[in-house]
């Protein structure tokens, strides 16, 4: 692979550029899925389980059907569609082979219902008020069953078995086993270590809480289904819909022009898509299904809560000898995604063992939320290590520099390595030596404290596609299957095309978000779009340039069309983005209140395509991380199994007044891969933010906060 050009020679890439669709977004002209109105469209609503676990004995929908305006009612009795992406062994949604063998199937309507908020019935009616009224006319007779909410408790023998196979979620081979990683011999490591420390950390269910609630507009013309739906991956959504409905891919068209965020919970197809499609089929009319905010909170998914036990062995000079994690992830009753807990890979250590159990519970379903396995694991392990540093009487930064990863799993080299630079630059910009002090040392009721955390996150290469057409009027039209969830993919793809083609950005048009018009794209999940689809744009542009050189510019009705579906590899090296966050907080020890005073985020995400939007991404990620650290939780009533804080207010999502200024520093490196050396960025901002805040709180008050979120009551309790 040829080396990308240096920054100085780049005309578009690397220059702060307002989003190409910003004007539409500030004038109200951007058409989101919910803004779509089709002639004769019906409105749909979903009836949801009021119980955490219950068998449906009987459903009577006759009164609902008799209500004027009601066109159709679906229940588990007349609709038995399996939602493939809803529950898959191993949580591996992208693998068709696994979808075929999975034993634990999630239907769009299940009996028994296994969590509060699980769909029981859906109604389509001539307007939304009638649909809502019809829900109240459906009578359901439930036989309530015992339930379990906590992931550790669910593994006790006396707990109810949510699935016949037990409460350890099945893996990709349909086996009820934990995910295990080992190198070296941890027992030997603990025997030879000078000091061994053990502790337990927990993290809570945090909802994605994207601003646009889940909805879908479904319409059939003959045997072809068109969906207007907010999805992070139109190609994946189409394929999932086709598989679940038993029709060929080309009989499904997915359109998503604008969407109001997702952060992972609009991947794949959703049950709302399937319900809307089935109601539209049933009624012969277009159907718009809208979820309320509460339904979105409890009926879609959020970050899996975890319980993490660590055991760490160090030598007397503070070098890691052995590291062990035993973790439990609460998946709700369906394993929508992996349930992993990352973090052990952050450290250089000869003896490592990580055992993580994805566990079924009767809470809301867990799934992907911005860096799905990372913030909870990074909080646990980096709090643990911060504590080890403290007990070893070491400065946390020195401890990190001594023990952090230098090769992937101490074995495979990284494609390049700037972790140390990130930490040193951050410490300097933050003035770590000045702000950090022995924990709890500040006098007075209001105490300041400094904390840091670092990260590596996957930045893989992979297959995606792009098409570019050059017309005789000199306009370049780029066709990419991206949807812009807010990360700026449309702008980035256009900038990449302009740069590679050597034309101004204004000469490039973009066609996106429509499976009938765009080729396959990976979807805006896993921070992959810039790396993968962006690289496909480069390859297509190169092909187009070759064609221009060969055939000349097109004239009259002629056009030149280039396409590419590259699948680049990083040749025995592991590609990762690196970063370090430094935080200063102030804790009011009388009120328990935490305020973030200073926040420095240093990131190496390779070449920064657009500093304007990349900075926003990091700011947003870090701010969400602060929310996870200090505020957010979906609290359940342990006696009824009902969620108590579903919604922005109850879950205490960050607001303007909570959000501190985030200073973002990019270290731009170039490993020779990806488009112009770009690495992932979308998830990078959140992954270590939680741990950094937790460590700052420790430095402030001298008490280790081990359970998220770090709320006032917990701080006051720790200080009491």
């Amino acid at each position, binding site marked *: 692979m040829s080396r990308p050009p240096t920054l100085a020679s780049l005309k578009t890439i*690397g*220059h*702060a550029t*307002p*989003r*190409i*669709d*910003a004007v539409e*977004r*500030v*004038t*109200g*002209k*951007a*058409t*989101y899925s*919910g*803004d779509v*109105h089709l*002639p004769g469209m019906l409105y749909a609503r979903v009836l949801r389980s009021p119980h955490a676990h219950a068998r449906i004995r009987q459903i009577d929908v006759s009164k609902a059907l008799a209500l004027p305006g009601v066109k159709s009612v679906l229940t588990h009795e007349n609709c038995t569609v399996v939602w493939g992406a809803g529950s898959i062994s191993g949580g591996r949604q992208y693998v068709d082979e696994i979808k075929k063998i999975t034993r634990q199937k999630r239907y769009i309507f299940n009996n028994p219902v296994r969590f509060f908020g699980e769909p029981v019935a859906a109604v389509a009616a*001539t*307007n939304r*008020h009638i649909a809502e009224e019809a829900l109240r006319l459906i009578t359901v007779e439930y036989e309530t069953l015992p339930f379990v909410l906590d992931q550790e408790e669910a593994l006790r023998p006396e707990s109810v078995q949510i699935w016949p196979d037990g409460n350890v979620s099945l893996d990709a081979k349909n086996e009820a086993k934990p995910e295990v990683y080992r190198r070296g011999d941890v027992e030997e490591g603990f025997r030879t270590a000078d000091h061994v420390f053990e502790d337990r950390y927990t993290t809570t269910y945090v909802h994605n*809480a994207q*601003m*646009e*609630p889940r909805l879908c507009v479904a319409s059939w013309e003959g045997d072809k289904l068109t969906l207007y739906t907010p999805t992070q991956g139109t190609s994946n959504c189409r394929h999932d819909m086709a598989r679940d409905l038993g029709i060929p891919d080309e009989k499904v068209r997915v359109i998503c022009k604008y*969407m*109001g*965020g997702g952060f992972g919970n609009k991947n794949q197809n959703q049950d709302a898509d399937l319900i809307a499609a089935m109601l539209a089929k049933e009624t012969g009319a277009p159907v718009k299904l809208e979820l*309320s*905010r509460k339904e979105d909170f409890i009926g879609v998914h959020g970050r899996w809560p975890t319980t993490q036990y660590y055991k760490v062995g160090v030598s007397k000079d503070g070098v890691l000898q052995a590291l062990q994690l035993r973790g439990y992830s609460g998946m709700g009753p369906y394993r929508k995604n992996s349930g992993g807990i990352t973090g052990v890979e952050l450290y250089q250590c000869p003896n490592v063992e990580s055992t993580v159990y994805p566990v079924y519970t009767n809470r809301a379903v867990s799934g992907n939320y911005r860096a799905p396995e990372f913030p909870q694991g990074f909080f646990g392990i980096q709090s643990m290590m911060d504590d080890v540093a403290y007990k070893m009487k070491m400065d946390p930064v020195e401890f990190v520099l001594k023990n952090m990863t230098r090769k992937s799993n101490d074995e495979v080299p990284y494609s390049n390595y700037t972790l140390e630079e990130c930490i040193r630059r951050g410490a300097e910009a933050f003035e770590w030596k000045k702000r950090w002090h022995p924990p709890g040392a500040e006098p007075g009721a209001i105490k300041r404290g400094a904390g840091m955390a670092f990260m590596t996150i996957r930045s893989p290469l992979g297959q995606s596609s792009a098409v570019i057409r050059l017309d005789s009027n000199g306009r370049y039209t780029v066709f990419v299957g991206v949807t812009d969830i*807010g990360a700026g993919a449309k702008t980035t793809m*256009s900038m990449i095309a302009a740069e590679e083609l050597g034309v101004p*950005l*204004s000469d*490039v*048009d*973009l066609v996106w978000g429509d499976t009938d018009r765009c080729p396959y794209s990976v979807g805006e999940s896993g921070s992959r779009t810039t790396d993968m689809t962006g690289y496909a744009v480069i390859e297509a542009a190169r092909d187009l340039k070759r064609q221009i050189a060969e055939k000349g510019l097109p004239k009259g009705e002629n056009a030149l069309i280039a396409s590419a579906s590259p699948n680049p590899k990083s040749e025995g090296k592991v590609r990762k983005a690196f970063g370090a966050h430094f935080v200063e907080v102030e804790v009011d020890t009388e009120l328990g209140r935490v305020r973030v005073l200073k926040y420095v985020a240093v990131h190496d995400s390779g070449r*920064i395509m657009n*500093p*304007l*939007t*990349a*900075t*926003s*991404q990091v*700011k947003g*990620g870090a*701010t*969400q991380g602060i929310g996870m650290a200090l505020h957010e939780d979906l609290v359940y009533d342990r006696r009824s199994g009902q969620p108590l804080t579903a919604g*922005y*207010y109850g879950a205490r*999502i*960050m*607001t*303007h*007044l909570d959000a501190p*200024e985030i200073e*973002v520093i990019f270290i731009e490196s170039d490993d020779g891969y990806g488009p112009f050396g770009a690495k992932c960025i979308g998830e990078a901002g959140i992954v270590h933010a939680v741990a950094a805040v937790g460590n700052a709180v420790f430095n402030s008050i001298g008490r280790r906060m081990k359970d998220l979120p770090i709320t006032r009551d917990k701080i006051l309790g720790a200080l009491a």
Partner: protein
Amino acid sequence: MSKRKRDISRRQFLEGTGAVLAAATAVPALKVKLPTANPPATDDVASGVPSTAIRLVVNGTEHRLDVEDRWTLAELLRDHIGLTGTKIGCDRGECGACTVLLDGKPVYSCSNLAVWADGREVQTVEGLAQGEHLDPLQQAFVEHDGPQCGFCTSGQLMSAKGLLTHNPHPTAQEVRAAMTGNICRCSNYNRYVEAVLAAAATKNATTSKGSSGRSTASTKLGAEVSAANGRRSPAVSTSSRGGAR
């Protein structure tokens, strides 16, 4: 869309089925045809449902129409007047995505009934630009990368507009306080505050108070916007402010 003229009071509704049936099939009379992306539903007022005839001014245009008493202002604007720029994020007064100006004051349109807007003036995001010229706030939102996903943006803009009308030169903390009822889950709060302060610093930020008599987004703006569909619009500055290099 049918343009049959009609003016039915709530009393007339209750008086006989004839009126009720008419309400079920007719479309409210709008004095001026609005530029809408999506046609409003044709059977707007459902039969047998209490409704009220109201008058209100939206973005400088007067509307006389029948509304079901259960409709929220957000629902009226989005589904029956076709102004979908106002977004519904929670429909229960928590997130602020639906913020509009009601007689110049920011309110959650999801938490106001449509009938309460009778005799009042509403300004939505569609009423901010003057012809092809973006409001200084909109311009600043573009330049400072205010919208990530953009779903909260209309609400942020309207809260900011309400703030600057009453306090043309706010401090950063005053901006945060005024906009704290507008959640941004992309958490682009720093950018929004930057943008509002930048707009306040531009000369004409506070010259256009209220929305009376102003035209809604013109066709010309619409054309510019669709032209921007894939490339930077001419109205957008190429300034590289806000970058982190």
